[in-house]
């Protein structure tokens, strides 16, 4: 890592990343992904996955409860909208603070164990939180319905400056810029870029190296004089805060929060994103998040009816047979497709999509060093060798 990652390479990674994110509306148009709602999802789940990768990718501790922090972030943000102001900055601040606080507690408890026990502890905690949000904590979470904005919300700060106008619920904004449509996406994109930069710094820092040391051989770390616990807790809290930030952004783009955001399937999804993209790589989680959210969008929107229409070019008899075979894999059953894709990747590309790209790059340019920066130099501390 020391020799392979020069400052210039990191700069190139950063520049390519910034360019790719900001031009996403252009290059995602051909595959039909250029609309703000989806683009925002890419960015937000990208942030979630980047943060998750700091814990799972660097330390190897697999948390099955990170959606809790996503949920806490959303609730905190919506409460900030309700009580204080529709400006998104305080909402984001509160979300990160609260999720940070909760991750200190959950991390402190769960990190007393490692391996499968750690995963189970986080999973148990997540399900507890989900059930609490769903039932006991209804005054805070509004239970089943989810927390929503109302016209009658106090919004103390907003109302100090402007007279309450009773024309519908105001929309979330950044000092007057409305956070819907493309401005919402570009705000999320800027946050994503900042988050990616922080993650890059962490990967290249002594702190990051210590985390990969813990992943590689915790026994040796202890006999080398490191106390792994605070390092793990720090990584856990950082990833929890990333998740809280992502949760806040979900609320920014669509100001409601529901308990289902905390369900274990949501926690599992971020695990899939990270592994699918490339565990422990810098860019992998963002790619994984994008791919999963894209496929979710495509496949889940195909109902039985459109499926039939899409296959109208087939002969009469074939049409219904093919539709019958495909239909379980689309619509609400799109998780079947996701499962298949996930299995294929784990079996044939254990390093995730990122390792697939670098393999591709090296087949096309066998002699020279792979010049494609995103695919090659992003292999990192976890020791993927494809980069060289």
């Amino acid at each position, binding site marked *: 890592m*020391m020799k392979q990652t020069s400052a210039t390479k990191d700069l190139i990674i950063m520049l390519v990343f910034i360019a790719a994110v900001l031009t996403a509306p252009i290059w995602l148009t051909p595959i039909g992904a250029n609309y703000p709602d989806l683009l925002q999802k890419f960015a937000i789940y990208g942030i979630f996955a980047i943060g998750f990768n700091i814990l799972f990718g660097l330390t190897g501790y697999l948390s099955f409860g990170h959606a809790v922090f996503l949920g806490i972030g959303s609730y905190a943000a919506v409460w900030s909208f309700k009580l204080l102001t529709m400006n998104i900055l305080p909402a984001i601040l509160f979300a990160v603070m609260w999720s940070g606080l909760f991750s200190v507690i959950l991390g402190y408890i769960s990190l007393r164990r490692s391996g499968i026990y750690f995963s189970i502890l986080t999973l148990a905690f997540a399900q507890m939180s989900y059930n609490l949000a769903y039932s006991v904590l209804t005054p805070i979470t509004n239970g089943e319905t989810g927390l929503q904005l109302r016209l009658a919300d106090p919004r103390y700060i907003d109302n100090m400056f402007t007279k309450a106008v009773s024309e519908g619920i105001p929309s979330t904004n950044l000092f007057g810029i409305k956070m819907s449509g493309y401005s919402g996406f570009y705000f999320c994109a800027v946050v994503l870029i900042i988050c990616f930069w922080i993650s890059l710094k962490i990967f290249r*820092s002594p702190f990051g190296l210590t985390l990969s*040391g813990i992943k*590689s051989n915790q026994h040796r770390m202890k*006999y080398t004089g*490191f106390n792994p616990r605070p390092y793990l807790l720090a990584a856990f809290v950082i990833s929890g805060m990333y998740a809280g930030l992502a949760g806040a952004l979900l609320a920014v783009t669509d100001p409601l929060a529901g308990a289902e955001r905390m369900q274990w399937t949501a926690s599992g999804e971020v695990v899939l994103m990270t592994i699918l993209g490339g565990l422990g790589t810098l860019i992998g989680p963002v790619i994984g998040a994008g791919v999963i959210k894209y496929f979710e969008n495509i496949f889940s929107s195909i109902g039985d009816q459109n499926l039939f229409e899409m296959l109208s070019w087939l002969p009469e008899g074939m049409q219904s047979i093919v539709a019958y075979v495909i239909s379980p894999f689309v619509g609400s059953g799109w998780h079947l497709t996701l499962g298949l894709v996930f299995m294929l990747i784990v079996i044939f590309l254990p390093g995730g999509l990122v390792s697939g790209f670098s393999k591709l790059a090296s087949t096309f340019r066998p002699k020279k060093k792979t010049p494609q920066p995103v695919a090659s130099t992003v292999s990192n501390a976890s*020791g993927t060798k494809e980069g*060289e």
Partner: protein
Amino acid sequence: MENTIFHVDDVEKRFGGLLALSDVDLSVKEGRTHAIIGPNGAGKSTLLNVCVGLIKPDRGTVTFDGELVTGKQPYEINQLGIARVFQTPEIFPDLPLIENVILPVLSRRDGAYKFAPFASLRRDKAMLEEAEHYLEDMGLASQMNNLASALSRGDKRRLELAMCLIQHPRLLLLDEPTAGMARHDTNQTIELLQKIKAGGMTKVIIEHDMHVVFSLADYISVLAQGKIIAEGTPEEVKNDPKVREAYLGEAADDE
């Protein structure tokens, strides 16, 4: 008089009904290479594990330079200045060699915990140079950027030794540093350890191979069935009839 830097005092350890260590006393003088020998199952490894905090003794204490070692966490013991080489090399297999050596430097410099997520490793040229220098000493510099898992067993041992030495420990514990090595590798390791010995580092070494013991040790304690049965210079131990009977046997005639 050299002063005693490491002291094992009246240590006893039971595993169920088995008495692994009984009334073990050990005084390691500063700057010496102190070997602990004994037949299989004599309790040598248990003793070393007690020394690094892996096993808590049922009775007795271990002190290092006036500080109590017993009851401390392994990382605290390391921070006191005690490094350990394991029987099976404990390295960071998923990291390049250079990072394997940088981690101990970080621990020496920053202590058991330091939160510095925005510091840059790359800019720390002095640390990089030091790490490279230690790899060079072990003849591993050419493989600096390879993953440690790709090393041969002998190289892994050398890497682990470099990882321990770069911490500038005041006491180095070696658990059978030549176990499973070919004769050629063993001789290389002996040379290496002799070089370190010249630097004046205090060492405790557990070893099966008498050739290794007699080429390195200044002082030998013989452990048999959890008890120290003899102590002295290599000459004294070699000629001790009790030791010849209990352990050395034919091996002594070979020397």
